């Protein structure tokens, strides 16, 4: 197996996730795209872990998974709050903080 193939897979997933974050309007869909990005980072971390023969990559992949779980929990709580106050979760409509 080559190092490049895992890194390229991570790059492709990362870019698809970036497209999702930019293109989607629904807040839940944006959160799903962020999950894609975090997963591509994990693939890179584990590939480098094997490349360097060290377990540090595994440790950091576990930390990333924990952070992602916390992020989804808080993000969905915010989405529910926004939905309760405004009856919509379209990110275009949230313009109070625009200068």
């Amino acid at each position: 197996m080559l190092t490049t193939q895992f890194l390229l897979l991570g790059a492709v997933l990362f870019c698809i996730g970036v497209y999702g974050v930019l293109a989607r309007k629904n807040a839940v869909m944006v959160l799903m795209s962020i999950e894609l990005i975090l997963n591509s980072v994990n693939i890179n971390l584990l590939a480098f872990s094997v490349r360097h023969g060290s377990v540090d990559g595994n440790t950091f992949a576990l930390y990333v998974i924990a952070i992602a779980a916390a992020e989804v929990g808080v993000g969905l709580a915010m989405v529910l709050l926004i939905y309760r106050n405004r009856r919509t979760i379209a990110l275009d409509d949230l313009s109070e903080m625009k200068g």
Partner: protein
Amino acid sequence: MIAADLLVAQNVGFGIISLLMIIGAVRVVTVSNVVHAALWLVIVLSGAAAQYLLLSAEFVAITQVLVYVGAVMVLFLFGTMLTRARIGAESDLNNKNWFLGIPVALLMLGVMSYVIVDGFGSERLIDNSGDMQPIPVQLISDDIFGPYLLPFWALSFVLLVAVIGAIVLARKD
């Protein structure tokens, strides 16, 4: 020569799994039904767990299945059900400027691919003859509770704050 050298079982598995993952990821960002997108995301996350197994990281693969496929997907489906009056295809899931995302993503992919291929080329991750030993969980725990103890503490505080914050945000009063 090199192509025949690379055609081993791990590479065939890698190809099939990564094809499934890329198709699933594209469907996640293009499909017009939130529940379907969540189910496509399950394929991507399970495929990522299989890739971790190929990289001999068994503990991370199991954690991925438990946390992502088990917990995060349930949260997503809950979020979808609670914020949506009807389940079905929707027409306005995308921004009005959604097409601007395509050149941005393609440009980023081009730059990253160039850098990766330029930097690593055809470097072997492992040689084909050597079988990878799975990483013992003991080593990971020695790592977490040894040199990386401080981030672990910080992480537990982050999780605590996230739980409290989620309760405070979602509480109805």
